[in-house]
């Protein structure tokens, strides 16, 4: 008998020493045990790492199997009680059982004999070994010793398996983190980066959350701003997405690239909602606290409703969720919110640990990206300023030169034209009169050109009075009515009646509008539509009147755009190239601004912005 006991124990030890990691050896053990003790049922339960639930690991061949016996909480029923007491419990015959004993039995109607033994090593409980049979029996001390010895062997086996699972998990985490870091390094663009991060949090072989929302901290405005959300909109979408991603087992980058190509993410409703979230940093909401306290929260119970802002709970339907800070150089740059609203899988501390690890890496990548875009922005701004400076310097230099030339030319031109006029009088009645006429005409043209140049180069004062811009525009249009008709240009006036009077030199503004309108009309050689609008703009506490002049003349060729305000630049056969330069100068003289919105192939819109009030001192100084 002892020999048999020893043989069984040796066999079990042998099984324990050659782990299959598929659980096959546990079934074999259960078979051996049921045979050894002559019972119909032998089951091995394994404890989870949180020491809460015991789940069925193996059952002997021919033993009873049913859903109801697959899982026990610690402390409940026979299996749970064995785990919490950490000692063998035996009920030899159900007909003699006490009420306390009966309370432990959920299979009392089926069997008479029950025994269970804790699977423990020195301190940790790894599971419970359970046997039962229809026929009553009683365990001898030897039997109990054997049962206990077997349990200890199974303990080494379960521990071994636990280490193995743990090691595999760590290896998997490392490979996921590696893949994420590789993926985040492929881009410096924030949008793409956030997309990669959130996909990693939600895909099947990533962190496996149902939904993830990323928010970034805006320190200037003290808010937390939703940036992007990734996740299915409904449970149907969820099943489809999970199927797709876990079956394919594609790499993270591949999934993200595919989604971008398919335009999937921006169209998700969650993403649209996520972008509208704005949460004050000082709010009592968990998400704001995640930033302030630099730690993660796992809101597991649904009754903690008041800890989350109404905006979040209403827009996202958040109840059970986790919120993890995105850290970069010791600072919180953002927050990732995750939940499992579709499959209701509880978020474990393990999940949070992994998500935190991931968030630190993601935080760094985001900070890099933000720094990059800051630098890029500053660079663009600098370039723009530089260009503007160059433009104004060029204008000044050109203007000065033009003025000097104009002065030198004016004197000889005066005598040339003056004497031609005298000739004109003397040649009355002669055929040669028309030669003199030609000279007079040409000199007039040159003088007009000189006047334009002088307007450009000098700091004209003009007389500033309060005028209604709509009226000035109307009177300019009146002068052009003939031209509009012959060119078959339809005029649309979209004047705002609420435009207030502005301090301006009406003559100068007339010239501004005359130049702009004439240009637009000339751009529409085959007819078209000229739309003129006036409206009120308020920018940085200053009010402006805006005037937009839109034509359908095909726009300005891209390569000309940077030159249009330069003096002597023209695309017209007969133009002087001074019209827009003068316009620019006169608008600048009113402390206004002029800009071009060019739509090549369609048309161009010039927008003139004029401030309503001139600073008193400025006017004084100029007059």
């Amino acid at each position, binding site marked *: 008998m002892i020999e048999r006991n020893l043989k069984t124990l040796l066999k079990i030890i042998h099984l324990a020493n050659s782990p299959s990691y598929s659980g096959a050896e546990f079934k074999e053990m259960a078979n051996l045990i049921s045979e050894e003790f002559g019972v119909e049922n032998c089951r091995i339960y394994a404890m989870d790492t949180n020491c809460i639930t015991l789940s069925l690991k193996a059952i002997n061949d021919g033993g009873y199997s049913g859903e109801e016996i697959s899982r026990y909480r610690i402390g409940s029923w026979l299996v749970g009680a064995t785990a919490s007491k950490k000692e063998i419990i035996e009920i030899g015959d159900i007909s003699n059982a006490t009420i306390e004993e009966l309370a432990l039995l959920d299979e009392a109607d089926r069997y008479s004999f029950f025994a269970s033994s804790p699977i423990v090593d020195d301190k940790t409980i790894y599971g419970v070994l359970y046997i039962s049979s229809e026929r009553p029996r009683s365990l001898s001390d030897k039997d109990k010793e054997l049962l206990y010895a077997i349990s200890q062997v199974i303990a080494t086996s379960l521990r071994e398996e636990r280490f193995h699972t743990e090691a595999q998990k760590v290896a998997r985490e490392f490979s996921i983190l590696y893949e994420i870091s590789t993926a985040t390094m492929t881009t410096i663009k924030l949008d793409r980066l956030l997309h990669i991060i959130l996909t990693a949090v939600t895909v099947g072989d990533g962190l496996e959350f149902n939904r993830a929302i990323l928010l970034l901290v805006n320190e200037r405005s003290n808010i937390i701003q939703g940036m992007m959300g990734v996740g299915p909109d409904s449970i149907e979408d969820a099943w489809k997405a999970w199927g797709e991603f876990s079956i394919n087992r594609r790499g993270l980058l591949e999934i993200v690239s595919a989604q971008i190509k398919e335009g999937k993410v921006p169209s998700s409703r969650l993403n649209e909602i996520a972008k509208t979230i704005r949460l004050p940093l000082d709010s009592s909401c968990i998400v704001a606290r995640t930033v302030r306290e630099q730690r993660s929260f796992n809101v597991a119970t649904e009754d903690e409703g008041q800890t989350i802002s109404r905006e979040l709970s209403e827009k996202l339907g958040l109840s059970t969720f986790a919120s993890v800070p995105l850290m970069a150089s010791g600072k919180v740059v953002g927050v990732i919110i995750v939940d499992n609203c579709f499959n209701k899988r509880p978020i474990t501390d393990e999940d949070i640990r992994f998500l935190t690890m991931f968030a630190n890496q993601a935080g760094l990548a985001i900070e890099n990206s933000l720094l990059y875009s800051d630098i890029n922005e500053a660079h663009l701004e600098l370039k723009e300023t530089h260009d503007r400076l160059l433009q104004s310097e060029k204008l000044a230099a050109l203007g000065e030169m033009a003025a000097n030339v104009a002065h030198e030319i004016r004197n000889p031109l005066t*005598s040339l034209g003056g004497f031609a006029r005298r000739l004109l009088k003397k040649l009355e009645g002669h055929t040669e009169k028309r030669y003199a006429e030609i000279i007079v005409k040409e000199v*007039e043209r040159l003088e007009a050109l000189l006047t334009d140049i*002088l307007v450009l180069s*000098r700091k004209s004062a003009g007389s500033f009075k309060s005028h209604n811009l709509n009226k000035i525009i109307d009177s300019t249009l009146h002068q052009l009515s003939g031209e509009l008709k012959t060119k078959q240009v339809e005029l649309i006036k979209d004047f705002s009646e609420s435009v207030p009077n502005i301090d301006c030199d009406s003559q100068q503004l007339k010239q501004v509008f005359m130049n702009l309108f004439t240009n637009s009309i000339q751009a529409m050689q085959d007819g078209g539509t000229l739309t003129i609008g006036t409206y009120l703009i308020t920018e940085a506490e200053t009010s402006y009147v805006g005037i937009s002049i839109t034509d359908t003349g095909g726009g300005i060729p891209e390569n000309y755009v940077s030159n249009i305000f330069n003096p002597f630049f023209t695309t017209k056969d007969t133009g002087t190239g001074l019209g827009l330069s003068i316009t620019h100068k006169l608008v600048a003289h009113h402390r206004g601004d002029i800009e071009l919105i060019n739509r090549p192939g369609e048309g161009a819109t010039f927008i003139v912005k004029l401030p309503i009030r001139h600073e008193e001192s400025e006017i004084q100084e100029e007059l």
Partner: protein
Amino acid sequence: MKRILVVDDEENIRMLYQEELQEEGYEVTAASNGNEALDILAKAEPFDLVTLDIRMPGMDGINTVRAIKEKYQGLAVVLVTAYGEYKQDFSTWASDAYIVKSADLTELKATIKRIIG
């Protein structure tokens, strides 16, 4: 007959103004710079009006206006120049009129007529 002194450093302009203004019925004398103009004003019979170019070698038009207005308060001065921006120069305010030089003398003639008839 009203007497006009034309001051300009360009000989052609002097000739043009002289001929045109004589045809308008004025007696016209010419000077080529400010100093010469002041000499003539001091020696010759009184004038009714002076047309002054601004940029001239020697004494320029602005200084000449000042000198004339100090000595001959009743004498009208018309500045005729290619330099548009002088219109904003306070020194030119002493003159009775300011005209931008042009081959078309209509404005000049009209101005003179308005001042001295």
